[in-house]
């Protein structure tokens, strides 16, 4: 059993947990949080793949690791855009909901 | 030695995680951010222990970054609280 297996299972659960939150939470900010959990799960899966690719003295394959760094920065940018959209929505409608009634 | 340091890191982590229960019971937002701060300090301690146990000196840098940004988050919290009070008034 590879040392990375517990983290692999962890990433699988994180994706499911985040998806559940994304579907069931009515508040938009909670949906943003849940979406970030899904993202973290996917990144962690990348980390497990990278760890398994350890070779020639590196602790892990540097290519997926670099991709995760890129991904984290883009995920932050996406979160910032979502938060800005949400705050504008609240300013316009005075309600923190996605329903149109 | 590495095993002892790892065990210590695990112990500190579990201890501060119990402190996170404080977030559950609240009652105030200040308690929640306090628990996050305790979690931050414990996390830094665990990182330093981990750096030595697994001989990853870079983990010390992670601790440094964590310490800085924990302060940043706390300041953002204080600003957020005072701002929402100003909005209400």
């Amino acid at each position: 059993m590879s040392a990375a297996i517990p983290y692999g299972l962890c990433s699988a659960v994180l994706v499911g947990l985040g998806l559940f939150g994304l579907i069931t939470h009515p508040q938009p900010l909670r949906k943003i949080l849940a979406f970030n959990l899904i993202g973290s799960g996917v990144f962690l899966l990348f980390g497990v793949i990278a760890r398994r690719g350890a070779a020639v003295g590196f602790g892990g394959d540097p290519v997926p690791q670099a991709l995760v760094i890129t991904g984290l920065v883009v995920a932050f940018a996406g979160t910032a855009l979502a938060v800005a959209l949400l705050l504008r929505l609240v300013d316009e409608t005075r309600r923190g909901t996605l329903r149109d009634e | 030695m590495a095993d002892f340091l790892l065990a210590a890191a695990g112990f500190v982590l579990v201890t501060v995680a119990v402190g996170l229960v404080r977030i559950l019971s609240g009652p105030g937002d200040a308690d929640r951010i306090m628990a996050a701060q305790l979690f931050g300090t414990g996390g830094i301690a665990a990182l330093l222990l981990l750096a030595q146990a697994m001989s990853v000196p870079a983990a010390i840098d992670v601790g440094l970054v964590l310490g800085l940004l924990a302060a940043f988050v706390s300041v953002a919290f204080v600003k957020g609280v005072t701002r929402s009070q100003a909005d209400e008034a």
Partner: protein
Amino acid sequence: MALAFDIVLVLLILGVATWTISARDTFAAVVGFIGFGLVLALAWVCLAAPDVALTEAAIGSGLTGGLLVGASARLRRTETTSGETPSISLRLSAGVVCTFISAGLAAIVLELPGKAPTLAPQVAANLAMIGLDNPVTAVLMAYRAVDTLLEVVVLLLVLGGIWSLAPDHLWGGSPGSRHLAGPDGVLPFVAQLLVPVGILVGIHIFWIGSVAPGGEFQGATILAAMWILATMAGLVDMPAVSRRWLRLLLVAGSAVFFAVGFAGFAMAGAFLAYPEAYAKLLILIIEIPLTLSIAATLALLVAGPPERAPQE
């Protein structure tokens, strides 16, 4: 022992994640998410990825945390839970679907082929040629430099998207309200102490990126956080988004990146190809303006759209 620690850490991650999803109060969930980023940074150290651990601690926990804490404080008053909770049948079916997805992913993780594919030997073989010792920085700045270039462009596009959310009459103004230093002066004191130290740490993390874990994204995030800290303390004010120097600062990184990229055609025969003798120098020439541009972009992403009318 190492395995036991891994399992404790994984349980902790899952516990904090469950809390983030199940908390009743949005602010409590945000604090949970900050803690989640912290334990995840520990996990990245255990996965032998200290570069990612730095990024997670800086962006995943710190900068995202600051952004969400601010947003949840502003959304406090609009928070309603009544009448919107989804029905029990929807939650049940969502739970079943998500359990299946998790189980499927877990099965894939357990069934991964015995011999993992890896690009590590290829990365190692060419490290000496570009004069860097940190393989992750080498991938970001040399082998997959196109990815990094496009990522910086994406950051600028997102910033454009956020700015375009400003109402018409505020266009060209400054983001956020003007922060005034409190009469007690604790906050300016904190900022005056922390900001210089933070800038130093940021430059340190950026500079060691060529030989040890660190690099432009991690350094830039710390610089961005320090800029916002100084703004919140009232030491400096956010500039109006129409300022020319600000626009120049934002595009400087990608402009230099593109310039070096096109110069690659002349020097080495391909876009973003570095001639061997100058590889390290060229990477440094790209990295310095890139770090400043990323820092400015990240700070403005957190600051949000303009909220004050431009002063003429």
